[in-house]
């Protein structure tokens, strides 16, 4: 399979086939080794220019993309909206067209509106990679979760994964659901009814209201961040009660009586959705997730860069 099979942009896992997702995961394997070298750099993307366009706060994802870009020898520019012309009222498409007029090859975009990456990808010739758009998708996070689970279990077919907590606001949940289902895993959602959209059941996931039941069922638990900044709607009574009813605690883990693998996309609210002794315990793969994130982003950048923008090809 050639790179053209990935298309021009990476907007979401919803739009990829199982083979395309496997291609990205397999391509990420050798990139893990690049990050272990003394000189952590290969020339694959030498001369490519990439803009990281972040309209929303991010530490992990932005740094991860930047490392991935630099380890492939691309030239990068970071644009944070607070110090760009966006604060003067420039529209998304104007910002992007201006960047493209400077002959950039790729844009990595994070935006608070669902659909922003698709919108941009349809309007510029550069490759666009979605680094999180509103409540829609965060495909590279979904991919790194798949890679981490595959590392741990050897395969994803038949694996039972429970996604816990604030599914409603979570683009990570949506990317996980699409990716896991396409690769043959089973998915369950658990959390407060106010934060679990019923319509997601139509995608083929089950909803397990009680977290203890979900833990008894699952092989792995993807614990979502409670998005405190989006909690004006009165979705939960209090953080303490949330922790008591839905928090992943050591007592719950011991009660489940098995080696559940625990993922969390970060940043964590310790003592809310996850307790410190779980997050830092032997079941946690939270730091391997971060390591895999760089390899996954290198793979995505490498595969998309092969399909040259039209103004180069013609």
């Amino acid at each position: 399979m050639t790179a053209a099979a990935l298309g021009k942009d990476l907007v979401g896992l919803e739009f990829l086939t199982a083979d395309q997702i496997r291609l990205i995961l397999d391509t990420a394997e050798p990139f893990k080794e690049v990050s272990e070298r003394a000189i952590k750099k290969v020339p694959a993307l030498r001369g490519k220019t990439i803009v990281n366009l972040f309209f929303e706060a991010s530490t992990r994802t932005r740094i991860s993309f930047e490392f991935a870009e630099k380890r492939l020898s691309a030239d990068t520019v970071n644009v944070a909206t607070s110090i760009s012309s966006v604060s003067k009222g420039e529209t998304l498409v104007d910002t992007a067209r201006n960047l493209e007029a400077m002959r950039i090859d790729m844009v990595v975009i994070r935006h608070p509106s669902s659909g922003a990456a698709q919108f941009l990808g349809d309007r510029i010739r550069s490759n666009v990679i979605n680094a999180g758009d509103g409540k829609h998708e965060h495909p590279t996070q979904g991919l790194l979760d798949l890679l981490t689970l595959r590392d741990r279990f050897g395969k994803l077919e038949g694996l039972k994964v429970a996604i816990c907590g604030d599914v409603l606001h979570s683009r990570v949940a949506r990317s996980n659901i699409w990716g896991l289902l396409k690769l043959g895993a089973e998915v369950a959602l658990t959390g407060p009814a106010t934060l679990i959209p019923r319509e997601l059941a139509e995608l083929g996931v089950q909803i397990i209201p009680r977290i203890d039941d979900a833990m008894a069922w699952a092989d792995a638990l993807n614990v979502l961040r409670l998005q405190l900044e989006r909690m004006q709607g009165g979705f939960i009574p209090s953080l303490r009660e949330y922790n008591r009813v839905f928090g992943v605690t050591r007592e719950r883990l011991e009660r489940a009586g098995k080696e559940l693998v625990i993922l969390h996309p970060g940043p964590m609210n310790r003592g809310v959705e996850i307790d410190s002794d779980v997050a830092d315990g032997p079941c946690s793969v939270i730091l391997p997730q971060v390591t895999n994130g760089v390899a996954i982003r290198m793979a995505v950048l490498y595969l998309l860069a092969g399909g040259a923008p039209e103004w180069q090809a013609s």
Partner: protein
Amino acid sequence: MPSVTRLLDDTAMAGALQRMAREVVEKSGGTGGLVLVGIQRRGVELAARLAALIGAAGPPVPLGKLDITLYRDDLSTIGPRPRVGETSLPDSIEGRTVVIVDDVLYTGRTIRAALDELADFGRPRRILLAVLVDRGGRELPIQADVVGQRIETGSDDRVDVAVQELDGRDAVELVQGAPL
């Protein structure tokens, strides 16, 4: 119809590898500090064969493998390769004599990439190149130090190397009238 000419059968290939193993030791000035590095894919198997032949008479020879995909100069024109293979080198190549092993030497671009990649892992004392087949057609000023078989080919020809480990047989064949 493409025509297939057998250049080396299994016996001839074994003989060629024996000769190459001797020449590698001669040109490296002995086996001290020697490291063999095979280029993915079939160079890896050939390097292992040479290492076994050289190691049979003395201490084992350190072995590495190199995938040069990420060092190619044609990503924008040809696009990425479908699979990137593994790169693993012995602990250090610093100050060693590194012998790059590949199946076929043609344009020289693979070896150019391999030299760039090796430089990112350290500074060997010397680097030599050993290939089973030199088919001419160089596009860069690169030559092999040890050659199993030299042949003349045209740009429409293809040279196929089969190895027991991957293909179930040992052979070198010239395929004419069926370019890649």
